[in-house]
C-alpha cells in the first residue's frame, strides 16, 4: 500500500527539490541516498515500495550517466535538469499506473519505460526542457510524438499508458 504525504515547509526531503552540482558533489549524493533509504525504513510511511524503488533507480542511473561517453559510443551526459524533470513526472503518475523502469538514453535524455511483453512497450523521455518525446508499440500498432510538459502530465501520455495495459 502506498500513502502520499505532501511535503510542507521544511519537511521536504532535499532530493525532491532541485539538486545543485549533484554530478560532482559526492557528499550531496550520499545525503540523497541516506534520505531515500530512510524513507524505506519500517518506521517511514512516506513512500510505497515501487515509488521508492523508482527514485533509487533514477538516482543510480543519473549518477552512472552524468559523465560523457557512459555507453562506450559517445553518449551525452544526463543533466540535473533531466533528473529533476523525471522526478516531477514520477510524482505525477496516476496511482493506477505502475512505476516505470528508468532508462538512460545516449542523447542525454532519461527514459521512462513500460513494457508489458514482446511488441507491447511505451517509452517517454525528457531532457529537462519541458518536452516529452515518446514512442510506443501496441501489438502491431505504433505511436510516436512530442508533448509539452510543465505542471501536469499530458492527457495523451496518460492515454497511451492506459492503452498499454488495457
Amino acid at each position, binding site marked *: 500500500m502506498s500513502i502520499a504525504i505532501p511535503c510542507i515547509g521544511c519537511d521536504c526531503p532535499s532530493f525532491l527539490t532541485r539538486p545543485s552540482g549533484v554530478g560532482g558533489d559526492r557528499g550531496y549524493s550520499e545525503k540523497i541516498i541516506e534520505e531515500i533509504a530512510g524513507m524505506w525504513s519500517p518506521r517511514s510511511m512516506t513512500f510505497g515500495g515501487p515509488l521508492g524503488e523508482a527514485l533509487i533507480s533514477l538516482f543510480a*542511473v543519473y549518477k*552512472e*550517466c552524468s559523465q560523457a561517453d*557512459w*555507453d*562506450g*559510443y*559517445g*553518449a551525452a551526459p544526463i543533466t540535473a535538469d533531466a533528473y529533476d524533470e523525471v522526478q516531477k513526472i514520477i510524482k505525477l503518475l496516476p496511482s493506477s499506473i505502475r512505476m516505470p*523502469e*528508468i*532508462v*538512460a*538514453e*545516449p*542523447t542525454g535524455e532519461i*527514459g521512462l*519505460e513500460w*513494457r508489458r511483453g*514482446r*511488441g507491447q*512497450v511505451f*517509452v517517454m*523521455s525528457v531532457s529537462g526542457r519541458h518536452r516529452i*518525446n*515518446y*514512442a*510506443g*508499440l501496441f501489438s502491431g500498432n*505504433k*505511436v*510516436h*510524438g*512530442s508533448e509539452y510538459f510543465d505542471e501536469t502530465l499530458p492527457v495523451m501520455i496518460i492515454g497511451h499508458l492506459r492503452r498499454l495495459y488495457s
Partner: protein
Amino acid sequence: MNPVDVTETLLRFLYFKNHYRPDQTVRHSAFIPPQDRRLSVFRILGLRENEVWALGEKLRPEPPLGRADINVAAVRETGLTVDADDIPPRHANIVGWPDEASAIKLKAMELAEQAILHLK
C-alpha cells in the same frame, strides 16, 4: 566482404547494463544512434562464437557486457538500411534515420524488440 545480404545477422556490442533488461531482452536505448545518425554494428556472417566476441575485445579498453544480434531483414523492415564500410573489418552502420527524436525512438524500439541478447 560481399554486399550486405538480407539474411545476414548484425550485432551491436553493449557496454552498459541498463541497455538490457533482467529478463534478457534488449532496450531501445541500445539502438539509439549518435548525433551523426550512424549506428555502429558488425557483420558476423561465417564467424564462430569465439570469433564474434573477439571482435568486441579489440574495440575498447573494457570488454563488452554482451551483444544484441539482429537480422538485416529486421533492420530493413523498419525502413533503415545497412551501410557496410569495413572500417574496421566487418564494420557497418545502420543509417537512414528520421530527423524527429520521437521517430528515432520508435525505430530504435522496433529494432530492440527484434534483437536477441547474448551476454558475455
